[in-house]
């Protein structure tokens, strides 16, 4: 119990795992209670921090501007982010940025069900900023580390609430996400191994 309302941690998660996080829940019945997505590695997420390559932006709005951004992680997996009139700063960043560019996005996970019944996971951005390659590389290492920590807890904890929830709600082997972490790290090693031009 804390006397000050504490801010939600921004979880680090590769797109492969994030896009699998289709199960959402609330911790209380209050209408305004925050919505969490359940990461398949057994943690809840109400905010994420992503650094990747913005590869495409598009105004998909009908009446008013509604910008879609595609952000790709080193594995080639894509995060989708959407910003409209309620995220004016993020929307104007998507309008103005010229892909490809490295961007850092802080945002809330959102899910929606398609007409076919699939659940899509996307990011509602709180902020989008352009960053350099070093930030992207640091994020990749950090995200791999956090992912592995979650996998270890998943494998070792019998009684953890969210690990249990993930076992109940998903049938997704954590091996997929371990592999995503390994591939992402290996992609950095290849980059650094290349001789300077």
């Amino acid at each position, binding site marked *: 119990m804390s006397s000050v309302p504490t801010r939600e941690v921004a979880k680090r998660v590769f797109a492969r795992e994030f896009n699998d996080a289709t199960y959402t829940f609330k911790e209380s019945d209050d209408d305004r209670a925050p919505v969490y997505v359940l990461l398949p590695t057994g943690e809840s997420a109400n905010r994420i921090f992503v650094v990747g390559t913005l590869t495409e932006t598009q105004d998909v709005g009908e009446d008013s501007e509604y910008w879609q951004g595609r952000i790709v992680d080193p594995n080639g997996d894509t995060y989708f982010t959407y910003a409209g009139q309620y995220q004016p700063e993020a929307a104007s960043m998507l309008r103005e940025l010229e892909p490809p560019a490295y*961007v850092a996005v802080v945002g809330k996970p959102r899910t929606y069900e398609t007409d076919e019944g699939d659940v899509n996971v996307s990011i509602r951005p709180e902020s989008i900023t352009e960053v350099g390659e070093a930030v992207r590389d640091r994020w990749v290492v950090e995200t791999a580390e956090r992912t592995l920590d979650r996998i270890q807890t998943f494998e070792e904890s019998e009684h953890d609430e969210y690990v249990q929830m993930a076992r109940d709600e998903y049938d997704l082997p954590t091996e997929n996400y371990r592999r995503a972490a390994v591939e992402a790290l290996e992609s950095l090693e290849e980059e650094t191994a290349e001789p300077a031009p």
Partner: protein
Amino acid sequence: MTESDLRTQATEIHEQFSDQLEVTVEEIEERLETLVNEYKVPTNEARRSVINTYLDEAGMDRDDLGGGGGNEHVDIAEIDSPEEWVDITAKVVDLWDATSDAVAQVGLLGDETGTIKFTKWSKSDLPSLEEGAVYNLRNVVTDEYQGRFSVKLNRTTTIEELDEDIEVGEDDVEIEGALVDIQSDSGLIKRCPEEDCTRVLQNGRCSEHGEVEGEFDLRIKAVVDDGADVYEVIFDKETTEELTGIDLEEAQEMAMDALDTSVVADEMTDKILGQYYSVTGPTFGRYVLANEVEQLREPADPEAVLIKARSI
């Protein structure tokens, strides 16, 4: 975890329950062993789980548990795990407003090694602590929330005021993470010029002194997040200048040109949001006051994490 460690743990737990329950050290040790060796539960967690089982059986509250009288007397900086019963000698550095009726007092305790938050429950019915006084506190319980430790005073805690003073140590923390948010009242701000009042003005008004001619200052209230913990960091004028490369004079010119002070915060946001930093400074309440800041420009080394990834 060796056999003899579990034995020690079992003996300690046994002492706590020997008056209430017919249970042997061997039975407790066996429970611990099952959790630790078969289920691979960390020892702390196993201990907690076993204690909870016996609390249920004995119909007791966690608060009823004494530390068996033989607590370790610890320095505040040594406190690094939750659910430990300890004794401390500390000065009340600061009392905060309790935000809940369940809390009688909340604030900051300090000794030579550092500071720690304390909470005193209303139902524990303990005497009031005075700001600036030094106390010997026996039987307090440590707690952890998002990586930060606190101590809780409970019904079994004894409070003895000491006639001495303590020079409270600075406990600098070093944090690393991404700067994920910049809060309002950041950038170019105006402070109340009244003596000893440095409140930030809202629309030219000080909440204490009303409408005043403010003095310009720079500061940033930011959130640094490493994916596991969140820190609210305050950068003062010097560290804000270092962080953003914008000094007070430049900031005032920018604001003058735009006829709007918010352009300063916008410009600063573009430079620092989403970047990684290492910040060092003392903590104050929930804030880290940045004394030193360094941008982490070097890419992190993937090798160590890769080895870990391949090993699990």
